[in-house]
């Protein structure tokens, strides 16, 4: 389960660049609050992804506040594809074990 927040963030950033608060809101909306963790926890994850070259950051000023916008790098896109594939395999395996009708 440890890769889920990373997968969620990379997936959101694959559509467009976003800043931290926007990402946290989008995660809440998309997951209907099922991924509930302190919103501040997003930042160590984002900074670590940046250090690993998965996302790039740029700062911009909006409404008198500095915002750091994140976007996906080529490496990040590869990582997203990999995590998505892993997730689908895991999900299919779990569905099979549980006898999900979608795999019946």
């Amino acid at each position, binding site marked *: 389960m440890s890769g889920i927040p990373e997968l969620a963030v990379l997936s959101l950033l694959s559509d467009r660049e976003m*800043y*931290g*608060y926007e990402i*946290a809101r989008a995660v809440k909306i998309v997951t209907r609050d099922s991924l509930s*963790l*302190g*919103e*501040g*926890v997003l*930042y*160590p*994850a984002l*900074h*670590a992804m940046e*250090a*690993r070259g998965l996302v790039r*950051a740029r700062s911009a000023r909006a409404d008198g*506040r*500095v*915002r*750091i916008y994140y976007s996906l790098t080529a490496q990040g896109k590869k990582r997203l594809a990999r995590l998505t594939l892993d997730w689908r395999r895991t999900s299919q395996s779990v569905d099979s074990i549980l006898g999900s009708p979608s795999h019946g």
Partner: protein
Amino acid sequence: MVDQRFNELREALLRAGVAPRSVRRAVLEIDSHFQQLIDEECGRGSSDHDARIEAYKRLGTNQMLVQRYAARPELRAWSRRRPGICFVLLPLITYLLISGAILMSVVGLAHEFEPYLHRVHIAPHVTYRIDLAARIVLLWLFPWFVAAAFAVLAYRRRVALRWPLIGIIVISVLASLTNVDVTLTGGPTPGQVGAGIGISAQSLPEHMTRAAILALSALAPLWLGMRRLRRNYNVN
């Protein structure tokens, strides 16, 4: 204006060994996120007080944030991963390399002006002052500057005192054992420039005094800064 909670977060992140660049970014972004959460809560009709409480709750505690940052090795400062290299070896190498470079430059200059030095006679008091200036710069100012620069770096990174302490003592002892001799007299034998490292039983008290003065003067600001931080943030 940054909330006191974020000042404490900054301090806790630095103490946890997170790179200062990441700390600055973290505080900037988390503070901005906090303000937006307050706006969002106020927009829902909460009072400012309730909005702040809810925003704190949604962000998570400082302790949790620090744990998450500390768990990411890629966000740790290099100086915290290799403190021995950063605060002992690196200052020593810097001191030796730059001392050597300064001395070589003096020799190079003396060599360049050798024909001129053959033609002039330098008064004894000028010879003495040149020698004294070289000694002050190379044996006092420069080692102090290197030791103090690494002490400031250690303070900014909140590194445990023992590492810069070892580095400062090593540089101070080395500087106290070093001798520099710049004798420019002019005339047929225009002078000599020399340097060496040595110790004798006779000069031991002098070496030790020099080392102690250098070490204490470089260490005092670091110690005072760390004491102030401990008092302000009530940490050990």
